[in-house]
């Protein structure tokens, strides 16, 4: 299969006054062409930092300490700013969580969409106003020509998220990174936006990284799901595997804390995410894990192929499932 994005041993650290926060620690994964890769995890798991690193948005005090991000074979981390500019917005489009703040309040939304087109085609944004209206139609904004002359504050949250989506897809990017695109929206609008994203992805033949804390949503839409905890990948596999047979205790915990199809009681995972300045020496989930043993507290587990997916847990040996439930 065609690999679009190949992340190798990526480390993103935040150097703060009281220590180094290892937000993303030694993460490797591949993204295939046309695939939707879902990244799930609670707040502080490093999922957003990972997305930002791929989009080249890490700013001090954040720093990419090691690893490679190969996009179509090119290492993005070695690019100069001017080369980056040619990729951002053209080959990689990003959609963020809060649509309210990502539009400039002093320009009409039509202008801002046109500007995204102009950035990679030259000329003046005015020349692309018709293109902008087409893009607004593509994200199914009703009455696009009229909406194009509205200012951001005149639009609803869902509408703004559509505008941002149209900006992200303006130049038909090969990779779309959606960082919690629905979290700030009303529940009723969320489904529409997700559906729209998937359709656009299909239409453009792009790949997509969909970052969210909503694991059940990923079970519906993703081709593969990556569960992150405290800056590490704990499990990476197909929705089928994750839904029917989640292996890592954290994945199980996540599913049990949100599972709504059964009438079972909701369970929360006791404790909270560990300090990333001085993470526990062994498995980072060990302090909260009901199955943790001595080995878990001392030795860090590595990602291994178990039962058709990758999992980082000592409870499972290569090829088999001897974990206690």
């Amino acid at each position, binding site marked *: 299969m065609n690999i679009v994005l190949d992340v190798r041993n990526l480390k993103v650290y935040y150097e703060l006054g009281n220590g180094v926060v290892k937000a993303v620690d030694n993460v490797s994964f591949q993204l295939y062409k046309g695939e939707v890769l879902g990244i799930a995890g609670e707040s502080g798991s490093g999922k957003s930092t990972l997305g930002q690193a791929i989009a080249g948005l890490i700013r001090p005090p954040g720093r990419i300490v090691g690893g490679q991000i190969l996009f179509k074979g090119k290492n993005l981390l070695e690019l100069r700013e001017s080369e980056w500019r040619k990729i951002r917005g053209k080959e990689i489009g990003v959609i*963020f969580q809060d649509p309210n703040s990502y539009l400039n309040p002093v320009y009409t939304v*039509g202008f801002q969409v046109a500007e995204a087109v102009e950035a990679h085609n030259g000329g003046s944004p005015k020349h692309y106003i018709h293109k902008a*209206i087409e893009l607004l139609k593509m994200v199914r904004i009703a009455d696009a020509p009229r909406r194009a002359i509205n200012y951001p504050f005149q639009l609803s949250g869902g509408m703004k998220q559509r505008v941002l989506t149209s900006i992200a897809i303006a130049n038909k990017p090969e990779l779309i990174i959606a960082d919690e695109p629905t979290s700030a929206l009303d529940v009723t609008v969320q489904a529409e936006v997700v559906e729209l994203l998937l359709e656009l992805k299909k239409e453009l033949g792009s790949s997509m990284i969909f970052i969210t804390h909503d694991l059940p949503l990923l079970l519906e839409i993703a081709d593969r799901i990556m569960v992150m905890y405290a800056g590490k990948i704990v499990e990476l596999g197909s929705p089928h595997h994750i839904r029917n047979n989640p292996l890592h205790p954290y994945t199980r915990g996540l599913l049990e804390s949100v599972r709504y199809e059964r009438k079972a009681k909701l369970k929360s995972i006791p404790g909270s995410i560990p300090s990333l300045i001085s993470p526990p020496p062994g498995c980072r989930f060990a302090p909260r894990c009901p199955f943790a043993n001595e080995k878990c507290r001392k030795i860090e587990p590595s990602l291994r192929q178990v039962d058709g997916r990758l999992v980082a847990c000592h409870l499972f040996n290569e090829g088999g499932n001897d974990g206690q439930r």
Partner: protein
Amino acid sequence: MELANTRYNNVLSQIKQEKTKRRRELLEALRKNKWALASLYIIIALCAMSLVSFIYTPYNPFQFNLAIARQPPSLSHPLGTDELGRDILSRIMYGGRYTLGISFISVTLGALIGVALGILAGYYGGKVDTVIMRIVDIMLAFPTILLAIALVAAVGQGVKSLILAISITTFPVYARLVRGTVLQIVNEDYITAAKLIGLSSYKIMVKHVLPNTMSVIIVQMSYYMGLSILLASALGFLGLGVPPPKPEWGTMIGGGRTYFFSTPHIVVIPGIFIFITSLAFNLLGDGLREALDPKLRGLLRRG
């Protein structure tokens, strides 16, 4: 295609309409503030007066006549005559072009330099910021009038050096102010978004950062018009401004100061003009600040 084009032209003209609508809203907000509105009218009147002096003054402002020296205001000389018998009204009108013109040009120049430096410092941060802001700090460490005097002394007396002195002494304040605003703006998500669509730093600064600092700049410029009128006049009074016989208002006060106790009008009348002009620009600045910042609307009036 023809039809489509007219439709998109429609959209463009609608965008224009939207913009004029916003401008009208701004003027409306300004109109509600009586002090600011009155100030605006006073400023317009003073500018008109200075412009009229190009085609008409009641008397020749340079023609002296010792026979009628130091006369108090009368019908033939509404504002009296000065120590050399020159008509003060004519001189005030003629001098307005110096006082107002110098202030206007130096404020614009100071703002251009200061805003450019402030945006660069705030946008790039790091070393660029450190270098620019330390220069600004050094400039700010000097008392304004002292720095201006030193500059005029170094460059030589004249209109040009006066403009230079005023703009050099005022640009650091813009730089500091704009940098602070820019620091806030660069952390806004829409700047991240602008980077993400692949815009160059230059375009981001000009198109996304600058417009969002505009309100701060306009307000500061209005305040500084008032200040630079005072500065120009002070230098004129000290004999470092526009050289006599040119009737810059500060120079006029300087010329008449020996007669202050016998015929105070020679000094007081230019003083009143300086005072009113400076006050008007300051009040207009307050009004603009209120009108441009919706958060402050009403707040200032209540207080």
